[in-house]
């Protein structure tokens, strides 16, 4: 109590000096210090927390006539670490977010199985569970980067990717319960959204690491992430991570459904198209400094960003500040999870001159992220999906950061 009243006296004294010496800019600053009154109590405890009203980070929403069949993008430049907050995970819906009562929701597993199964949410939660960190990336992420003029900021260029800790039952456990028959090769997963979005998935992947997930970052899935149940297919293109999962049909052939023929196939220069291109290849992007940022001044800045690979762990990330002429290894945040965002960091002293910042990553298979020119040389300009090119950002002498 004594300390506090002493401090108040000091502040009053400082303010008085300031008034007396108005000609001096240095003391004007002192005068601006306001007296701190007695502290008031803060907010009460509450049942469900919200972020500070000062935090405005938000998903990017496109201008569209059909927001029920659209995507929103994660503001990756605002993320810390590797986990995307649930309210900022990117969205892609095909007929809007359905309202599902978890008490009524069921998962049907049928087709080429010995024992077709109908499971309630309660029954699914009784089974052995796993929690694993995985990214989900839309196959159309960075579509803007095929063009000569890329997107202006990382939210728009790379925001169709997010990373969460997912909790659920391994699909292999459910398939063992149902008893997969010898001639089974595929399964077709279907959602309970109005359009019953579906995708075919190779049985080998289903028996490996697919999660039938009900948890996301410690809480239940958000409605826009498939509440109450979704597939998480590690490393595979986002569309195949079927949300609002209601049915798995085990088959001997793929369904050749709309989203694996008409969409999510890559047209090459010769007019042929690649089909069943599941894995998202290794990719990285610098999130600070990135498009839209303004460097506050010369001197130290930490370059940071995210790297990921649909084929395993990220092994190295290199950063260039001279547009790719020379490279330095960035520090990688541990632990590095398979098919998950990996945070990279590198200290940088900006000399106040122009700089072109770019990152490239290499995954555990030895594959290194290519440039846009590398990709176009083999695929042409019409493959649309799966753009994992390196992304340069231009730092101007005034500290403004733009798409290079």
């Amino acid at each position: 109590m004594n300390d506090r009243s002493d401090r108040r006296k000091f502040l009053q004294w400082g303010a008085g000096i300031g008034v007396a010496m108005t000609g001096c800019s240095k003391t004007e600053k002192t005068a601006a210090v306001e007296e701190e009154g007695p502290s008031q109590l803060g907010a009460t405890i509450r049942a469900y927390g919200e972020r500070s009203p000062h935090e405005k980070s938000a998903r990017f929403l496109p201008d569209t006539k059909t927001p029920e069949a659209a995507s929103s993008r994660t503001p990756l430049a605002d993320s810390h670490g590797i986990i995307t907050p649930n309210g900022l995970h990117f969205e892609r819906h095909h007929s809007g977010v359905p309202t599902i009562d978890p008490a009524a929701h069921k998962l049907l597993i049928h087709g080429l199985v010995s024992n077709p199964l109908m499971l309630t949410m309660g029954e699914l939660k009784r089974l052995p569970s796993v929690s694993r960190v995985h990214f989900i990336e839309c196959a159309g992420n960075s579509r803007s980067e095929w063009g000569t003029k890329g997107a202006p900021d990382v939210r728009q260029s790379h925001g169709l990717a997010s990373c969460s800790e997912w909790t659920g039952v391994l699909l292999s456990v459910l398939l063992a319960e149902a008893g997969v028959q010898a001639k089974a090769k595929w399964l077709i997963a279907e959602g309970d959204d109005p359009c019953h979005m579906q995708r075919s998935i190779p049985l080998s992947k289903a028996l490996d690491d697919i999660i039938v997930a009900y948890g996301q970052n410690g809480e239940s899935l958000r409605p826009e992430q498939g509440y109450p149940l979704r597939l998480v297919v590690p490393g595979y293109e986002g569309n195949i991570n079927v949300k609002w999962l209601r049915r798995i049909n085990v088959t001997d052939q793929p369904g050749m459904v709309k989203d694996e023929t008409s969409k999510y196939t890559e047209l090459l220069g010769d007019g042929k198209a690649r089909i069943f291109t599941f894995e998202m290849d290794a990719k990285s992007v610098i999130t600070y400094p990135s498009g839209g940022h303004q460097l506050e001044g010369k001197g130290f800045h930490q370059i940071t960003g995210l790297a990921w690979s649909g084929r395993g762990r990220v092994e190295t990330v290199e950063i260039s500040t001279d547009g790719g002429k020379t490279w330095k290894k960035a520090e990688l945040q541990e632990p590095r999870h398979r098919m998950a965002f990996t945070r990279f960091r590198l200290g940088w002293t900006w000399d106040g001159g122009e700089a072109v910042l770019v990152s490239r990553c290499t995954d555990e298979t030895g594959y290194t992220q290519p440039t846009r020119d590398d990709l176009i040389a083999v695929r042409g300009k019409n493959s649309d999906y799966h753009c994992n090119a390196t992304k340069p950002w231009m730092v101007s002498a005034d500290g403004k950061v733009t798409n290079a």
Partner: protein
Amino acid sequence: MRKALLVLTVSIVAAQSGKYGVGRAPAPEEIKRLDLTVLPDGTGLPAGGGSAAEGKLVYERRCQRCHGAEAKGGDEVAMVGGQGTLPTPKPLKTVGSYWPHATTLFDYVRRAMPFKEPGILTADQVYAVTAYILQLNGIIKDGERMDAKSLPAVRMPNRDGFIPDSRPDTGPKAKR
């Protein structure tokens, strides 16, 4: 009462078959009600059928507002034309130029269209509108009826236009 007994019996069967014995065996009618799968060989196609002439009426009422007259495109994608454009700088990917299987069109229209009222069309209407789109693309003839037998037999122009994933396609381990 008989129904309840049947469910009880099958759930005991399921409980004994898996390692954990969690969940129950669905009744065949339950599976049938939920099973929307249509495979390229025609598996899962329902009874019924329709012609392009019938489909034109369905199209004009339910589809044209978004997809334009004669499916040439409007606010939403074109479903006709584009054949021969795939290897050019401006490819037009439509049902006629790109889709490898006719069954996909039936399946997608049945489950997802019209956008604001998916599931409103009868099987006959879906067959008919499928026939209309195929006929506009010159893939089937006027008057040809689409049903569970004829639809999977339709040969799409781009049937052989797809190749397996050939990645990695850059770097020292590139496949090409």
